């Protein structure tokens, strides 16, 4: 009995779990996507592409897609710009506080998304920390609009995906080796040149991995766009929720959900491909 033949049994518990709570509902979703909505607003059992064609013909779907992609791209970029130096520091430090610092960095992950959003409201709101400080310093007269708009959602989303990106970066920094940077310096490269020629290229696979993860998490985020957007920020995730609950339009919600899922799978595949190519 070889190890490779035994291996699939180890996947069985997780496999059954995923099958039951993910694959089966997704199949039901797929079935719903072919249903129609009758004149009364009730769902009509059908096997047609009517709902799908109508949804994709609607200009709003395109706008939602663009909004989701743009929001995810900006939030991921901001989060990456903040996470990369931090992760590099955590990866390298030999401080005995390293473990504690790493936990602090990923602590937001352990806090409920709703609680985190209320935190941001306290910081970014009209009477929040930022506006209060700026006003007391006399830098602004009227409060800046930092929440219930795209700015607030982008900030909140960037913060919420950072812990995941930090973990992905730390996991992906494997090839990074202090000795390589020392070799670069001994060969005449300044610290800045060493970063550009050695550190950055070697951490590129980690960056792609982390960015891919951050992007996917942003695309599927619901709480942050919903609560920090104040009803003014429309993305795919919020629309799916609206259609499924407020409008009880299950077929449209199903079409949009599957569409989002497909988008994510394509993005994930692309980032994996890129990461693999870079690792070579």
């Amino acid at each position, binding site marked *: 009995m070889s190890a490779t033949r035994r291996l699939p049994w180890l996947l069985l518990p997780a496999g059954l779990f995923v099958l039951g709570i993910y694959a089966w509902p997704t199949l039901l979703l797929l079935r719903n996507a072919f249903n129609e909505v009758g004149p009364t607003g009730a769902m009509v059992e059908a096997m047609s592409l009517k709902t799908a064609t109508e949804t994709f013909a609607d200009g709003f779907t395109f706008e939602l897609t663009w909004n989701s992609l743009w929001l995810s791209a900006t939030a991921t970029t901001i989060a990456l710009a903040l996470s990369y130096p931090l992760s590099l520091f955590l990866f390298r430090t030999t401080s005995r506080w390293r473990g504690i610092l790493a936990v602090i960095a990923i602590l937001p992950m352990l806090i409920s998304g709703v609680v985190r959003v209320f935190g941001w409201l306290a910081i970014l709101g009209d009477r929040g920390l930022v506006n209060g400080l700026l006003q007391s310093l006399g830098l602004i007269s009227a409060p800046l609009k930092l929440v219930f708009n795209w700015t607030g959602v982008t900030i909140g989303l960037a913060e919420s995906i950072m812990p995941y990106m930090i973990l992905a970066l730390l996991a992906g920094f494997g*090839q990074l*080796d202090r*000795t*390589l940077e*020392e*070799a*670069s*310096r*001994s*060969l*005449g*490269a*300044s*610290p800045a*040149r*060493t970063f550009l*020629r*050695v550190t950055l*290229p*070697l951490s590129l696979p980690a960056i792609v991995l982390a960015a891919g993860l951050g992007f996917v998490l942003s695309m599927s985020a619901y709480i942050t766009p919903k609560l920090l957007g104040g009803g003014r920020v429309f993305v795919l995730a919020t629309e799916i929720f609206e259609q499924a609950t407020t409008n009880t339009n299950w077929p449209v919600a199903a079409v949009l959900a599957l569409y989002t899922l497909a988008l994510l799978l394509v993005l994930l595949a692309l980032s994996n491909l890129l990461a693999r190519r870079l690792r070579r």
Partner: protein
Amino acid sequence: MSYLELAGLQKRFGNATAVDDVSLSVAKGEAVALLGPSGCGKTTTLRMLAGLIEPDRGTIRIDGAEITRLPAHRRNMGYVFQSYALFPHLSVARNVAFGLEERGRPKAEIARQVEEALALVRLSGLDARRPRELSGGQQQRVALARALVIHPSVLLLDESLSNLDAKLRDAMRHEIRSIQRALGITTLFVTHDQVEALTMCDRIAVMHRGRIAQIGAPEEIYEKPATRFVAEFVGRANALPAERGPDGQVRLWNETLALAAPADGSFDVFVRPQRMRIVPVSEPAGPDTARVSGRVLRSVFVGDHVEVLIEGAGGQLTVEMPSGSPAPAEGSEVAVVWPATESRVFAREAP
């Protein structure tokens, strides 16, 4: 005139003094080994030379110019790392070209020099490979070529052969030595392997606890160790406990020896195993010959020689005999003789 001059170098890490007052003068074109056990400060010394760590005290000069605080990238040192530290994302050619590219040399000149450097280390034709597609020995050569191509002021080798298997290490030892000689490049070689130090260098600095215990030509280090540590660390030696008796004579294993020794106290007599001979008990000691007697515990055949372990009144000793000569039978009573001049006497170390 010395080319590379280390004066009073000191480096502390927390409470531990890694390097303590190391001074060393190296002539242009000379190869010097820093030999010592791990933790003796040899690598720290090398890293201070390369500018990878800053000394707490002391100065480093090259050709009269002080470089003690100069950043690593402006020192022009060729550093070959123990792990080779080849850039995994760059081809062999780009690895070797790295230093020249950073110096802003024209493309055509870089290409020509890289080709020459790869030819020098016998790696022509492998320029497009990635480092991980090379064997350990080949990686070592790339690292050497990369360090040499920048025409460094000093070539620094950090345990550079320790990751190779024994056969390859022998070959690389001779190869690096001949390249070093041909280019006349000043070289500092850090190693814990005495064979490497003895065969590859003009002089050896034996380091112990952050200090240089002795510096000299390989023969001098081997034949005239200045301290007990050097005698123990370089080559093999029997340390035979001895003392001066009330009659003023040196007594070793209950036998009286004619040796120059400290006026009083206990000390050890160091003798290299291959300088000792086993003779029949009946054979008397000649003039200027030290002689002890004992019983053969066992003989071990080691290929090019036979190690004979002998037990006597004061403990055990090992004699190295050329293989092929008849080894004495185990359990037999024999005498061991050696020229008195082959004895080195060091004070007993407090345990």
